């Protein structure tokens, strides 16, 4: 049951990803991307990360994509008049395939290592995902977390400066 | 150590000023200039306690005073300390820097109208680099400041320069960079030879290096400094850099930055590698003398005033190098004085060229003539500075030049001194010829007939320099006396170690201790030295071989 569901959602995710790349109109690309994000949120739920799934929907689909669509509308970007040269397209695809091939090859060969933790489904259910993530963020990762705020601040300043009338 | 970290304050005051300037609107030129001026004046005032507090008779470690030492970088085996100090040699160079800076900044008030903010920041950063270079005891720190100095100057030439500025700036940068990279390599080698620890020059001075290593490392250091000085075949960046640089840039370049090269010889190349230095003495003396005569001859036929002054710099620094390499009290003292003199006189000359350039926007000698009639004050000042550059007695130029020649004559470099003395004639020829063509003659160019004489600001710029020209010429004692102990130490280091190595290879145990008590009677000991050369009338040609022999018999460790 779960695997069938996975396969369906995965198929939707892949198809919508392909659409992002193939659509001529950027609006269509954007909408496809939203679709992809939703699919990914679904996977996150399946992986017992409901908080991240929610964040995914809110931040990505809700904020970033809206911003992108807003810009597309604002700039009134037309559909691409033409693709890049044919060989560029081919070369890009070939490189993409190589990347895929290599990654898969890598996965085939590899085995999973890494610091194993104690978090399992039961714990997530008992404590709640939000609390677990929150505890991590505000204890172990407190400093990076605070630094992210600086990053965002810098981004805000940068965006404001860049978008000013006169550069 | 409990006292105020005066040197750090001195080094970073201009930096604070530069940061302050960042927050000033770039269009309010007046405020920018005032702040920059105030900062440099404050720096100068802060540097005065150095002179007052410097105790020439002090017996501090290595002769350095106002020492500051703070651990800075400790990366594995590498330990860099933030280690500052001044001795009699660097003291006056620091003073020269802090003295020249307000003058340079005052000279830009009307000369620079574009990008004033950036210009002032460049100037202040330059001051940080220059002061740092002179006060650093830690070689790593020295290297950093050495490079820091380079960048603002590069921008000053490249942005505010003349027509051909990019070429000049790149030439300046590449020339200097080539040298300093070699120095960096040698520095690292030196560090490993010393077997870890910190980069303090005090420690490196005591090293006993084997002759082969010394030669290579001396060459690397000497090349870096020779480019900066600049010595004869490596001088071609200087005329270009000077002609293209804005006035303040030229002034600082001539007055202070060139001194970094000679300072490098005195502080590093000679005491660190005495054997190699002795071995290369004939070469360096030859290059210096060629530089003097060559630059004088070339200066004679220049059509551009600024280029002429630039070539005269090459000649003057030839004197400095000759004096320093004479390696006796008079020679080194003369060399050091000549460094200061050159800073004052040539700085003043560049300012003067700047004045007429601002008025006429040309530097061709042929465009002028008869200015003395139109600009009497200017003529007087120009004349005083010209004669100071020629080295007329009573002005500063004479004392240095005289001591250099006397020192060289008394040392093994006698024949070089004789040739160098012709520089006395040649300098009169080119300077006076230029002066005559610019200031004398008919005032027949209509553009020159409306020139205005110097205004109050310009006179204010020149007055301190004129004062120094006479003061150092009539009463150079304060300078000489405060330098003397450091110079004796330098001579002892550069000569003593080599003698110890040659004469008493087994008794390496206490070279410092053995030599130190002899110092008070140094005056008695010194006369013994020329005698050795007196015995050989044709001393100069014979000498190189004599010195070659020294490293061969030397056993390290």
């Amino acid at each position, binding site marked *: 049951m779960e695997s069938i569901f996975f396969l369906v959602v995965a198929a939707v995710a892949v198809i919508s990803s392909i659409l992002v790349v193939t659509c001529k109109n950027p609006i269509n690309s954007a909408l496809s991307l939203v679709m992809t994000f939703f699919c990914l949120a679904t996977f996150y739920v399946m992986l017992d990360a409901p908080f991240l799934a929610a964040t995914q929907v809110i931040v990505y689909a809700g904020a970033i994509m809206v911003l992108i669509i807003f810009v597309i509308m604002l700039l009134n970007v037309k559909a691409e008049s033409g693709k890049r040269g044919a060989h*560029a397209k081919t*070369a*890009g695809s070939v*490189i993409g395939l*190589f*990347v895929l091939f*290599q990654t898969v*090859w*890598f996965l085939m060969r590899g085995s999973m290592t890494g610091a194993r933790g104690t978090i399992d489904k039961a714990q997530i259910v008992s404590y709640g995902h939000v609390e677990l993530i929150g505890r991590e963020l505000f204890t172990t990762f407190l400093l990076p977390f605070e630094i992210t705020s600086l990053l965002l601040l810098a981004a805000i300043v940068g965006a404001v400066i860049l978008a000013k009338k006169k550069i | 150590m409990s006292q105020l970290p005066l040197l750090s304050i001195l080094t970073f005051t201009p930096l604070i000023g530069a940061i302050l300037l960042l927050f000033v609107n770039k269009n309010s030129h007046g405020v920018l200039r005032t702040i920059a001026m105030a900062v440099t004046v404050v720096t100068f005032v802060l540097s005065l306690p150095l002179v007052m507090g410097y105790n020439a008779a002090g017996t501090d470690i290595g002769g350095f005073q106002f020492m500051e030492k703070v651990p800075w970088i400790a990366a594995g085996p590498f330990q860099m300390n933030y280690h500052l100090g001044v001795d009699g040699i660097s003291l006056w160079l620091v003073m020269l820097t802090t003295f020249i800076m307000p003058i340079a900044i005052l000279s830009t008030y009307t000369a620079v109208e574009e990008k004033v903010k950036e210009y002032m920041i460049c100037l202040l950063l330059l001051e940080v680099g220059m002061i740092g270079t002179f006060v650093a005891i830690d070689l790593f720190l020295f290297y950093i400041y050495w490079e820091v100095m380079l960048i603002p100057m590069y921008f000053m030439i490249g942005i505010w320069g003349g027509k051909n500025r990019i070429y000049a700036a790149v030439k300046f940068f*590449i*020339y200097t960079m080539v040298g300093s990279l070699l120095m960096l390599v040698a520095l690292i080698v030196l560090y490993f030879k010393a077997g870890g620890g910190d980069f303090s020059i005090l420690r490196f001075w005591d090293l006993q290096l084997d002759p082969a290593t010394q030669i290579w490392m001396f060459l690397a250091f000497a090349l870096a400094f020779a480019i900066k000085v600049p010595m004869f075949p490596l*001088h*071609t960046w200087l005329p270009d850099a000077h002609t293209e640089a804005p006035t303040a840039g030229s002034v600082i370049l001539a007055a202070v930055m060139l001194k970094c090269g000679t300072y490098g010889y005195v502080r590093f190349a000679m005491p660190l590698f005495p054997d190699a230095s002795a071995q290369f003495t004939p070469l360096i003396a030859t290059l210096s003398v060629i530089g003097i005569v*060559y630059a004088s*001859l*070339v200066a004679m*036929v220049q059509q551009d005033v600024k280029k002429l002054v630039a070539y005269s710099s090459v000649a003057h620094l030839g004197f400095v190098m000759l004096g320093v390499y004479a390696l006796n*009290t*008079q020679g080194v*003292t003369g060399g050091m004085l000549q460094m200061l003199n050159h800073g004052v006189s040539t700085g003043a000359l560049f300012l003067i060229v700047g004045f007429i350039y601002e008025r006429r926007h040309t530097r061709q000698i042929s465009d002028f003539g*008869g200015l003395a*009639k139109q600009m009497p004050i200017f003529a007087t000042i120009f004349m005083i500075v010209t*004669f100071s550059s020629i080295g*007329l*007695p*009573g002005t500063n130029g*004479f004392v240095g030049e*005289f*001591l250099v*020649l*006397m020192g060289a*004559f*008394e040392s093994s470099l*006698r024949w070089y*001194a004789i040739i160098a*003395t012709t520089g*006395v*004639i040649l300098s*009169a*020829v080119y300077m*006076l010829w230029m002066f*005559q063509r610019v*200031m*004398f*003659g*008919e*005032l027949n160019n209509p553009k020159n007939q409306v020139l205005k004489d110097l205004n109050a600001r310009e006179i204010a710029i020149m007055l301190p320099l004129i004062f120094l020209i006479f003061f150092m010429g*009539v*009463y150079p*004692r304060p300078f*000489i*006396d405060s330098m*003397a102990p450091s110079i004796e130490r330098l001579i002892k280091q550069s000569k003593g170690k080599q003698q110890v190595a040659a004469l008493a290879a087994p008794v390496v145990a206490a070279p410092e201790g053995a030599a130190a008590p002899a110092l008070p009677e140094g*005056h008695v000991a*010194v*006369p013994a030295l*020329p*005698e050795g*050369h*007196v015995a050989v009338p044709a001393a100069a040609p014979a000498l190189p071989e004599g010195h070659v022999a020294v490293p061969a018999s030397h056993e390290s460790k």
Partner: protein
Amino acid sequence: MFEYVWLIPLFPLIGVVINGLFGKKIKNETVIGGIAAGAVFGSFLVACGILFQLLSLPGEERHFEKTIFTWISSGNFKADIGFLIDPLSCLMLMVVTGIGFLIHLYSIGYMHGEEGFYRYFTYLNLFTFSMLLLVSGNNMLLMFVGWEGVGLCSYLLIGYYFHKKSAGDAGKKAFVMNRIGDFGFLLGLFTLYWYLGGTHNVWTINFRELASHADLIVPGAITTTVALCFFLGATGKSAQIPLYTWLPDAMEGPTPVSALIHAATMVTAGVYMIARMNFIYIKSPTALLVIACVGAATALFAATIGTAQNDIKRVLAYSTVSQLGYMFLAMGVGAFGAGVFHLMTHAFFKACLFLGSGSVIHAMHHALHHEHSDADPQDMRNMGALKAKMPVTFATFLLATIAIAGIPGFAGFFSKDEILWQAFSNPHHGSANMLLWGAGAVAAGLTAFYMFRLVFMTFFGKTRLSDKAFHHLHESPWVITVPLVCLAFLSVVGGWIGVPKVLGEVLGGMPNYFEHYLEPVFAYSTNYMLHGGHGAEHAHSIAMEWGLMGVSVLIACGGIALAWALYIVAPGFPEKFVSTFPVLHRAVYNKWYIDEIYDFAFVNPCKACGNFLWKGFDVVVVDGIVNGVASVVRGISGLLRHLQTGMVHNYAFSMALGVVVIVGVYLFR
């Protein structure tokens, strides 16, 4: 009084400061001139006081040193700012301040109305200051300071009319020639210092200390080198062959300057220096011979040129060169006292002559100005018959001319005759003595000839001016004539303090005061010569001395007679002579083409060399190598540059490709 010796140079220095800084504001010529002249007069008074005190002391105690402060001290080298008083320096102080004061006074009248009046007096005071430093400094370096200082002032004053190119050129030439001399001076100083210090551990440049160690200076190559190096300095300053060419050109300066600097004081600095260092020269016969030869040659050579010049000041300039040659001849034959004596008498009559010529030029200038004529007021061919219009000038000029010609009784006679006698009888040069005497005697004849030629062309005959201009000629004001009279008086009587022994005996045992006065200074040399000098003194009879005196007087009279014959009796003859020997005349008139030869041999090669080094070596070789390296790098990077297309997506491609390749290598290695 000795304690106040520092006041002597100080007064003129104060004058420099006041006039230099505020002269432009003062504007009032009387005040400016008054300050300047007053300063020198103050120095003169102090010098007089010192002289009297000096004379009141017994001979061997006539010296005093006053050190103000240590100027340079480095290692074993030490130079003070200090003053030395001894008969020699005191004499020089008197000459410099005395004549200097008269010339300052004269200048007030002469320079009246000139633009830059204050500038002139600033320079003149500065000159006096430097000259006083030169003659009173107690060590070689201080002497060198004055030495260069007077060179500087000479440069400034020659170039006073700086808008004239010729004036600027002349000033530069003077300074550079002097610098060549200074080169010698410095080398001499170094060698001496190193020689005494290195071999005997006597590290000093103080004159008295050197003199007290004079025994350490032994005859030999190094002593000769020292002596010749210093002499090179003297040839530059005192305009001797080969460096004399600047002096005639120096006449571009105002006439009082020519009188003070280029006749009376500065140019004699070389003589003073050799006299001061006589204990070195006496040790080197070679150097003495060189000096004597150069002196005699200069005396003769310059005299020949003097005969053909038409510019009144140029004639006097060559005459100065020639007379300086005499002084060096004296030095070269070891007659230091005689040389200094001639220095003094020459200062009197030559200053008088120059000032007189200045008076003439002044008058001519005004006369020609009235007529708006462009004629040269200095050209003797425009003058003639001035004696009626300018009686005082004429009388003083004539007296000075008689003095320089060597007519017995006048100042020049005593000093010149002493030199000629010493040249003949000195024990140094053996058979060369005859030659030296001969050159001196011929030069004396020539001197008499050209000086009287000058007088006859200027003051006698018919005027060559237009009537209107001639009408406007008038005698100069008192500030000009008073110094003339003073100097003429000195030219007449100045010689009597140094009457030669043979003459003195005839005149009832009149002693040679001058020689006696200078005795302490040259005592060492005199003793050295007496005891183990170069061979015993030849015995010369008194009759010989009388005979030679008579010959030289006859030669002088012959010169005067020739001038009279050629320029008064048969005024057409010189032209005829010129047209008969055009080549000779042209050569003499053009100063034997020495300037052109120097240009060809030294100046132009130097310039060409400089040009070659700059454009050939600097630009082509050094920069060629540097730029060559740069072009190679640029060439290579130009090739590599094609990889950088500047298109963003190409970079993205490269990046992705790079990742694929790196990962591929990692995976499939």
